[in-house]
């Protein structure tokens, strides 16, 4: 029996991007399979978030292709990206919650915009998303009254409430304490197990990466420097990979 037409959900080929004077991506090739969690690691400023923003059409490649579920993102105009954005949602590094809305309103927002008008269903879906991220008690609060970890979790709740096929996480555990980080890691794992969600995660948190990743890609000097399982990463003979995962800068006091 032949394989399904594509088991790839995201395919990036030869992606190049320059921002101002800075040549960020030099030709990135990356495939994310349906239902897997692929974690992108790498030094700061190497373009991990830029790569992620190309996947959802927030940025356009200078050169290269980005295919999401069979659709060429780079060929679509902003107004034609709706089918992709219905399948892919994103959690931003700082959650990007709307300041003027309560947590509940923030989470309901994508559903309302998608046309859901049934109040009971709306309430149930929001409540369910809040429970998944353990924020059921905080739905009435404004984002400004939440801690950093709560904001991140609310951002994740907003990303999952539409039941997207794929979620992009931009540093979901950055600047969080280890316990809250673990809550978020467990939630990403639960979503994968329960809903078979494809996840693309950008992180610097090695502990988190080992917990959630099916595969790991290391972005360095604008290209994918390493691609493999967490086990392969750990055993990689590449000194640059080892320095990064062990946090060795080479500078001594």
């Amino acid at each position, binding site marked *: 029996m032949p394989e399904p037409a594509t088991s790839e959900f995201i395919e990036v080929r030869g992606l190049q991007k320059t921002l101002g004077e800075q040549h960020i991506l030099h030709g990135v090739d990356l495939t994310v399979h349906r239902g897997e969690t692929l974690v992108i690691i790498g030094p700061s400023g190497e373009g991990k978030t830029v790569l992620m923003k190309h996947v959802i059409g*927030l940025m356009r490649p200078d050169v290269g292709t980005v295919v999401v579920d069979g659709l060429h993102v780079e060929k679509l105009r902003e107004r034609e990206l709706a089918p992709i*954005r219905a399948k892919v949602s994103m959690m931003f*590094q*700082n959650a990007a*919650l*709307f300041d003027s809305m309560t947590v509940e309103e923030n989470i309901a927002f*994508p559903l309302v915009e998608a046309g859901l008008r049934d109040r009971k269903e709306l309430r149930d879906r929001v409540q369910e998303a809040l429970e998944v991220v353990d924020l059921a008690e905080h739905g009435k609060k404004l984002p400004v009254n939440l801690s950093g970890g709560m904001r991140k979790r609310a951002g994740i709740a907003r990303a999952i409430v539409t039941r997207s096929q794929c979620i992009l996480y931009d540093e979901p555990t950055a600047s969080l304490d280890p316990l809250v980080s673990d809550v978020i890691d467990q939630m990403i794992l639960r979503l994968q197990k329960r809903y078979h969600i494809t996840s693309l995660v950008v992180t610097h948190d090695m502990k988190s990466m080992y917990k959630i990743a099916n595969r790991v890609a290391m972005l360095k000097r604008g290209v994918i420097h390493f691609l493999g399982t967490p086990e392969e990463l750990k055993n990689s003979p590449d000194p640059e990979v080892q320095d990064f995962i062990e946090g060795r800068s080479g500078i001594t006091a």
Partner: protein
Amino acid sequence: MDFFRLPGRIFLEFLHYLGQLAALVGDLSYAVRSGILRLRLVARQIVEIGYGSQTVVIVTGAFTGAVFTFQCYMNFKQFGVETGVGAIVSVALCRELGPVLAGLMVAGRVGASMAADIGTMKVTEQIDALRVMGVDPVGYLVLPRFIAMLISMPLLIAESITFGLLASFLVTVYGYGVPQPWFVGHMVEHTNMTDLNVGMIKGFVFGIIITLVSCHQGLMAKDGAVGVGTGTTRAVVISSLSLLIVNFFLSVLLNYVFPMGASA
């Protein structure tokens, strides 16, 4: 050749800016055609723009009417025509002072707020979040403000004119003892619907300028809080200067369409 370089660059930057505004108008017309109108947001903006600007517009209109009346009265008195103050103040308030001063006040108060709100959303990725959720930022953020401004601005100008005239009436009749029928009679005789039409048309045009300039500055904001601050300042400066420049050409043009002294 270096002599022409700086003006040339300024001219090109000006064209580039106009191009960006034209693109925003294009996005706005697409948002209108999409047929999605968020009435709650329009209502909220009417409260913010219209209701929230009451004090500033009333005080500006009233005291401008009062001081203009004072100056006119002092000069007219020398020629013994002080009863004509109502006429000159009324026409000036309807055609120029009401629209321009209310416009400048709204540019300062509302334009700054629009640029800061949208700019903050831009630098904190809230606008990217809207896009990711398939929501057109122009349709969601700019269109409600645009509609609210088109509704509010002519009303604010009418209010500014009304309070200016009221102040003029109080200063002339109760301050200087000009008989009420003379003041009102001259005012009604020399003020036509055309004068009010000019004020209202200017209100629409100024509303369009303030909204486009301020929302554009917000949408273009970058570099964090500093960028939002810069965008906010630019929004107020560009809207105010554009408003004064456009007002001159609009006055000349509208004087052909609605000549002074002609009835509608």
